[in-house]
């Protein structure tokens, strides 16, 4: 028998498969799924919640970004949107709702009150909900327009895109 060289295709079989395969990382696939299917839980306590309704409804239509499925149980949501003023009397309730959400979870603080207490410089208002729970994205405005809410969703999607599954830590020590 004479020597016959191994065909090039056998050495690198991918060549014959064309574009039937895509190679990627687990993080990229997981983040792609997470960022395009955010399920928001609206914690609406003031006028910012009205703007949230505007964002969800047809004119601004957050479903273009995959976040239209509003859940009213924290156990089914992964995006907590605090839209409005939070008082100290209400703070344990907010904390409990955050704790009831499953990982992975993100928080958007919408508007001046949730972000800093707004103009309520008084004895009963929490000066920013980051005293109570960790926050991913802050929205300025009193109240912010629906476009600002959409901008926050897009920013959060970019943030999720860069998350590393192994390095993700649970802030706040949810049980």
């Amino acid at each position: 028998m004479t020597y016959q060289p191994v065909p090039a295709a056998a050495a690198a079989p991918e060549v014959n498969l064309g574009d039937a395969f895509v190679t990627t990382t687990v993080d990229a696939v997981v983040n792609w799924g997470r960022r395009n299917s955010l399920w928001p839980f609206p914690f609406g306590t003031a006028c910012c919640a009205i703007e949230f309704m505007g964002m969800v409804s047809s004119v601004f239509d957050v479903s273009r970004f995959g976040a239209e499925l509003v859940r009213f149980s924290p156990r089914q949501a992964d995006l907590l949107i605090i839209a409005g003023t939070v008082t100290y009397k209400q703070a344990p309730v907010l904390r409990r709702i955050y704790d009831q959400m499953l990982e992975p979870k993100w928080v958007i603080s919408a508007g001046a009150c949730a972000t800093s207490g707004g103009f309520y410089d008084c004895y009963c208002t929490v000066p920013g909900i980051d005293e109570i729970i960790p926050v991913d994205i802050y929205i300025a405005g009193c109240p912010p327009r629906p476009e600002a809410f959409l901008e926050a969703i897009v920013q959060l999607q970019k943030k999720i895109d860069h998350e590393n599954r192994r390095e993700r830590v649970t802030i706040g020590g949810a049980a």
Partner: protein
Amino acid sequence: MSAVAYDAIKPGLSADELLAVLAPLGGVRDAADAWGLTVRVPRERLRDAVLALRDGATTRFDQLLDVAGIDYLSYPDWRGERFAVSYPMKSTVFRHRVTLKVLIDEDDANVPSLHDLYASANWAERECWDQVGIVFTGHPNLKRLLNHHEFVGHPLRKDYPCQKRQKLSVNDPMVDQLEAKLVSLGYTIVEKATASAGSPLTVKEAAK
């Protein structure tokens, strides 16, 4: 209320006539009243004055609109007592209103409760105690109405530091009166609402 119903309310007493009713009970017109009749009465005669206004055939003040605490600590050029309690009253029979005002000292900040004369006084007095710290002697349930149960101090006093942040460590169940009401109606409480301890707050706080 429609105009027809308003016309059914009879004309009331004038300010002078109301003052004549209150004068025997120590009532003196408050010089600062700008929008209506305000009468200062001594604390000892408050309940008598309120009863006279409520039950008098020509007065019939059947509504106590509010119980408002006033702190004169930073009031310009004020030389009198530090606190006052103001009782705006209205009649649904006659077309007249009056506000009673009781001035009280800081170290003796209490007035008799009116909860047995007007049902609306119960919560209004609780709010006044909560926010201004005036004790209503004889009140059946003088506890905070608006602020949470761990709150210390009375925030509407002028010397309260308004930027003092008071965190609430547990939930406030806020249904103790509801439970009592249900029991009085014959229901049985199977599981009592309790204040649940929240988990420790944020990393930011723990680091402090």
